[in-house]
């Protein structure tokens, strides 16, 4: 038994969860929500996190909207408790199929069976695939707090070093992806398959009928304290060119040149130059995969 002691509270509805967070905080507790527990539990076993109370969102799996996957009018909506594995096996339209394809990079099947979309985004790891995908496809996070609901665009979500714009008394209820991208790909490098990436890259290409780009997105993880879009690389896509190997190389060069990656990571001894080289390789790969995707 490794985690520190805590009191346990089951939430039976979203308002109930918000109420529990508010009441426990008022009583001097330090409550935390638990969804899949696949990030929070390792943090608690290492005692990097020691919440004095846990509010379990598990019973809310019975609330249909919390596990719903639905698409309408070019927006894909995922309930907060949708698991990585549910997305991996969902029949998504071509505009959002990149989400399903990217799931194979998230840990392993037993992690994906429990870990949730909202948990991943609120945890906010700078290399988490969901965080990159949120920036790639213009996600909006719908959070409910004591004062009601608000919508947080992905661009304002990640403050870096695991800090996000979701307040401690808020419960994420839904994540909406508002920018379909039929030509998109995510790829990454980790020393062992299933580990968090050292660097990961996601690319979406806006292609016209002749296969020329008219814009797009380039998103990187592992090169800054938070996942980032790379405007310098996106400008290359906006300038318009055939989506071929030359373009992939130009986008990759622009991305590698624009970033200022950290020099080391927790004793892994990964240099800034190494992250830059990974960036160049991965962005080029992602461009090539994206131009082939959904053809």
């Amino acid at each position, binding site marked *: 038994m490794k985690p520190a002691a805590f*009191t346990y509270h089951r939430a039976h509805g979203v308002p109930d969860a918000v109420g529990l967070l508010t009441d426990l905080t008022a009583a001097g507790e330090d409550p935390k929500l638990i969804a899949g527990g*696949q990030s929070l539990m*390792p943090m608690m076993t290492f005692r990097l996190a020691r919440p004095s109370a*846990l509010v379990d969102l598990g019973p809310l799996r019975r609330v249909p909207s919390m596990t719903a996957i639905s698409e309408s009018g070019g927006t894909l909506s995922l309930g907060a408790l949708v698991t990585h594995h549910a997305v991996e096996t969902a029949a998504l339209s071509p505009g959002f199929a990149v989400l399903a394809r990217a799931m194979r990079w998230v840990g392993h*099947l037993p992690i994906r*069976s429990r870990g949730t979309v909202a948990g991943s985004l609120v945890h906010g790891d700078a290399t988490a695939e969901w965080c990159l995908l949120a920036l790639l496809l213009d996600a909006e996070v719908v959070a409910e707090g004591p004062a009601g609901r608000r919508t947080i665009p992905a661009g304002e979500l990640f403050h870096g070093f695991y800090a996000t714009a979701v307040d401690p008394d808020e419960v994420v209820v839904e994540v909406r992806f508002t920018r379909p991208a039929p030509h998109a790909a995510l790829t990454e490098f980790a020393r062992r398959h299933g580990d968090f990436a050292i660097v990961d890259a996601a690319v979406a290409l806006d292609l016209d009928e002749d296969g020329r780009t008219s814009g797009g997105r380039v998103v990187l993880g592992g090169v800054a304290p938070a996942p980032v879009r790379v405007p310098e690389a996106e400008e290359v896509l906006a300038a318009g060119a055939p989506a071929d190997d030359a373009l992939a190389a130009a986008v990759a060069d622009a991305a590698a040149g624009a970033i200022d990656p950290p020099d080391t990571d927790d004793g892994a001894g990964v240099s800034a130059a190494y992250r830059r080289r990974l960036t160049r390789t991965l962005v080029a790969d992602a461009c090539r995969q994206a131009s082939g995707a959904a053809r």
Partner: protein
Amino acid sequence: MTDPHLLSLTVNGAEHEVVVEPRRTLADVLRHDLRLTGTHVGCEHGVCGACTVLLDDAPVRACLVFAVQAEGSEVRTVESLAGPDGGLSDLQQAFTDHHALQCGFCTPGFLLLAEGVLAEQPDASREEVREALSANLCRCTGYQTIVDAVCATARARQEAR
């Protein structure tokens, strides 16, 4: 502040009620409260997969689930695999036949992971089996024989249909 909870869960078809501290993991409840010590515990932070069980049919890390989160759920552990006469299941027999275990510490986790995968993908290709089994660590076998055993079981079950 131990805050004990009365927990009911179904393990291998039998209903159990136990009183647990919330910080007790499902792996610890299985091993210490229910004395089902077939589920092994290696890293206790989700990396090795030794503790893999089926929770409502999905393979999960039992060290990354607080037992209180499993209230009302159905758990399957390695103890459920053998037949009523105690004989090995087809998958367990395949592990023996293909030398898919040496020390055996990782085996319960691999067995339950494989059962979870084969239930969802009965026709999984060798590549898909490899990908799925990469979730768990084995320090002895070098993995190839584990993949062999799972693929052989998948094939035999398909043929028996």
